């Protein structure tokens, strides 16, 4: 059997984080009543012409610079002509001939190895409206609805070279891309809300060959995991087709998440978009000085930050990678570090409790109510022995859910750790008396028997005893 390798190129659409649309003053806010954020311009009414949103250009340039791209200092918009109900003008305004950014790259890590993925281009375009159908597809539906709130929202489309070779690499690429765009404030990059969307061009070829096989374009993935799975499935499917002696058909396929398969959506050849210059908009000329201003506004990017967390803060590389995968997490770490100096302890709490709770409640770090100050106070309470580590977890959960101050929670719940020997002596004596077997076991050399006794003390004190102190006191008393 031939050994195959997958060849994957990704097209990522990212909504730019502007207040208003690309060519008009309508709001870009997510989740508004359908067709309420619209005007003659984004509805494509006769006679309406727009004005380019400068912020969108700035964010696109920022993204381009962060992705190591060249910036086109003289660019313009083109029309991509095609007919679809979500496209009110009958053409999409995009940059076909002169993208604002081109020839960039992104470094990814996969299985401990670093690899450079080249970026062909990143160009600005307008989002079409959003369609929803009564049936599964537009053609099988009795009714379709169009929401033009999305029409005219600024996007950049970032196109990679076909240099990825597995679903895992695609995942690493998307995670890195998402982190960079989040760090730079270019986009919300929320795949589930559609502010980041990814189409994958997938083909396979025998290992060792260099020409490209026939590709398919996979759509409808609404998470990075879905992209990875869809690519893995599509790769297998294509290999099977070839192994059966058949040919791959160039087509667009949709990922069916619940079934875990891709299915053919349309196999027409690419339509002739008849692209030409959009004369209703003036060309864009960017001053070098302005580009440098944008460059200067780019914060420390994920790679540099990860390096710093390892080299300066002494975190293990794994911790650093996890924390820097999200700008909000990385910021949270840095801000906590400003108040509390034990990097590894902070990291443990972020990697453990914080991520656990974020996943459990399925929320983004940016939406979490916990502050760096409160985590630092919590760590100080534990360090001072006021509460135990275990109590800390309980407090942390409260902090996470209610946004309250840890000291207040400790007070309210009466969660004060008992470390004073005087308060514990009687309880310890009782536990030993009531559990003679365990005491005997310990004395006979069964070290682990002490754990049971500590547990009993904790139970008796409703978890408030300082387990370290209890442990030491038990040993001392038993060995008398």
């Amino acid at each position, binding site marked *: 059997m031939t050994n195959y390798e997958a060849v994957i190129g990704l097209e990522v659409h990212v909504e730019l984080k502007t207040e208003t649309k690309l060519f008009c003053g309508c709001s870009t806010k997510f989740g508004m009543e359908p067709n309420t954020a619209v005007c*003659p311009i984004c509805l494509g*009414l*006769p*006679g309406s012409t727009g*004005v380019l949103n400068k912020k969108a250009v700035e964010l696109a340039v920022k993204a381009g610079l962060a992705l190591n791209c060249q910036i086109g200092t003289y660019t313009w918009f083109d029309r991509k*002509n095609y007919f679809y109900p979500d496209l*009110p003008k009958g053409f999409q305004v995009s940059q076909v001939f002169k993208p604002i950014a081109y020839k960039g790259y992104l470094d990814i890590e996969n299985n401990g190895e670093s690899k450079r993925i080249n970026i062909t281009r990143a160009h600005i375009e307008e989002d079409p409206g959003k369609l929803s159908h009564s049936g599964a597809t537009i053609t099988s539906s009795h009714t379709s609805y169009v929401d033009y709130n999305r029409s005219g929202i600024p996007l950049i489309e970032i196109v990679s070279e076909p240099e990825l070779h597995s679903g895992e690499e695609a995942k690493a690429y998307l995670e890195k891309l998402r982190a960079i765009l989040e760090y730079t404030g270019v986009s919300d990059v929320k795949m589930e809300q559609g502010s980041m969307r990814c189409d994958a061009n997938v083909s396979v070829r025998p290992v060792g060959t260099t020409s490209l096989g026939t590709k398919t374009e996979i759509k409808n993935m609404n998470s990075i995991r879905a992209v990875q799975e869809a690519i893995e499935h599509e790769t297998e499917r294509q290999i099977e087709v070839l192994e059966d002696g058949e040919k791959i058909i160039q087509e667009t396929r949709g990922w069916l998440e619940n079934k875990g398969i891709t299915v053919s959506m349309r196999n027409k050849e690419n339509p002739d978009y*008849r*692209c030409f210059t959009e004369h*209703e908009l003036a060309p864009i000329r960017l001053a070098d000085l302005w580009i440098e201003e944008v460059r200067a506004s780019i914060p420390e990017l994920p790679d540099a930050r990860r390096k710093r967390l390892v080299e300066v803060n002494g975190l293990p590389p794994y911790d650093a990678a996890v924390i820097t995968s999200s700008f909000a997490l990385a910021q949270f770490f840095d801000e906590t570090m400003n108040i509390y100096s034990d990097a590894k302890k902070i990291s443990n709490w972020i990697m453990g409790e914080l991520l656990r709770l974020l996943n459990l409640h399925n929320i983004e770090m940016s939406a979490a109510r916990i502050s760096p100050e409160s985590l630092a106070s919590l760590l100080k309470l534990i360090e001072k022995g006021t509460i135990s580590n275990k109590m800390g977890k309980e407090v942390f959960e409260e902090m996470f859910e209610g946004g309250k101050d840890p000291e207040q929670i400790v007070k309210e719940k009466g969660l004060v750790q008992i470390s004073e020997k005087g308060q514990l002596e009687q309880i310890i004596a009782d536990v030993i008396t009531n559990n003679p077997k365990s005491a005997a076991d310990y004395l006979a050399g069964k070290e682990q028997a002490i754990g049971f006794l500590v547990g009993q003390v904790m139970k008796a004190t409703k978890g408030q005893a300082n387990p370290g102190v209890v442990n030491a006191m038990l040993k001392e008393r038993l060995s008398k």
Partner: protein
Amino acid sequence: MQLHVLSLNRINELITKKEISAEELTKAYLEQISRVEDDIKAYVTVNEEEASVRAGIPVAVQDNICTKGVKTTCASNMLANFISPYDAVVVENLRKAGASLIGKCNMDEFAMGNTTEYSAFFRTKNPYLAEAMPGGCGCAAAVAAGEAAFALGSDASGGIRQAAAFCGVFGLKPTYGLVSQYGLITYAPSLDQIGPLTRDMTDLALVLNIICGRDSVDSGKGDADLPDYKKHLVNDVKGLKIGVPIEYLNTVKAPRVAAKIQEAIRKLEELGAVCEEVTMPHAEFALPAHCIISSAEASSNLARYDGVRYGSRVESPDVLNMFKKTRSQGFGEEVKRRIMFGTQVLSTGCYEQYYTKAMKVRTLVKNDFDLAFEKYDCLLTPTVPATAYKTGEKALAMYQSDFCTIPVNMAGLPAMSLPFGMAENLPVGLQLIAGHFNEGMLLRVGYTLEQNTDQTRLRPDISGL
């Protein structure tokens, strides 16, 4: 006093002195409309109601410029009942300045043509001769016939200037980008400009001042300062260098038209200008290139008319046929011809041969002008190689008539047409072309001619004038 023949300047004076009221003025115009409109047919919509309620200086606006609450049809069945929810920036500016919209002028469907014969509704008559063409809109006819104090038209291939030339009025196409395009339903956005049609030079400057007001909704392409154009109404051309492109002169076949152009040249020389022949070698390629570019843009700009959100819909059991029938029946022959041609020239395989080549020609045409303006303050040509042609003289003649106006649109330059006497009982139009944002030069030369000859003062022989 005949109020409907007065210039804007005079009207302003009389209104300021309270000798006349805006209501009286409006009444006079509505009366003239009822006297002559049946013969002229300049308007698709006469806006009697607004004119009466909000009396002001009556302006006629071509029916491809959006007016809130009043139909904007583009003389097409597709938009026969379309009412724009917003005013074009120029209309907003006019309203602010105290004008009232007296009517919307007829035109060729979507402005594709220069006779109004392609209007889906009816043809407008030339006030000088019923069987003669009025140009591609009813604007000049309305102004010449005393049906409006002035008008706003659009000019993608010479619309304003040709209509002005054929009907003996003044028309100016400003520099591309000087006047807001917002609210102009254009078929060729890279070529089109809104501009004024008036009865004299002073009015031209006044209206230009009003419509130039920028609005943030328009992608302001030119960064030119907005001067007071009245300052350029200077009666002096001494020492100005005026180029006369031979390629343009050679298109004139009618001897009496040619004679008028020569007369204008002599007059300017007499007044101290230096006139010289100049060559514009790429002029002859402008017409076919313009045809390709404008049709390409039209095929894209008119894609939105599918009968779903606006425009008249032709029902059909399935959606695809609904679209097809809507577009087949909603558009007229000339519009469909240009959509098909435009689609073709942008298609893979034709693109390089046609569209790309036409864009290169466009640059060459512009270069001809750039070179000429290194040496000359302005250029003088006939507006049209002939006087208004008559019913039946269509097709090729129609395209040929754009020879002198089209290169100006290709290069985005300002140009104007002013009346200069008659030939065979029809007005002759003189075209002046200047460099980008040099409208002032056009006003100066035009004003000087106006002040020193009788040739610019024409009036048709119709009822009420």
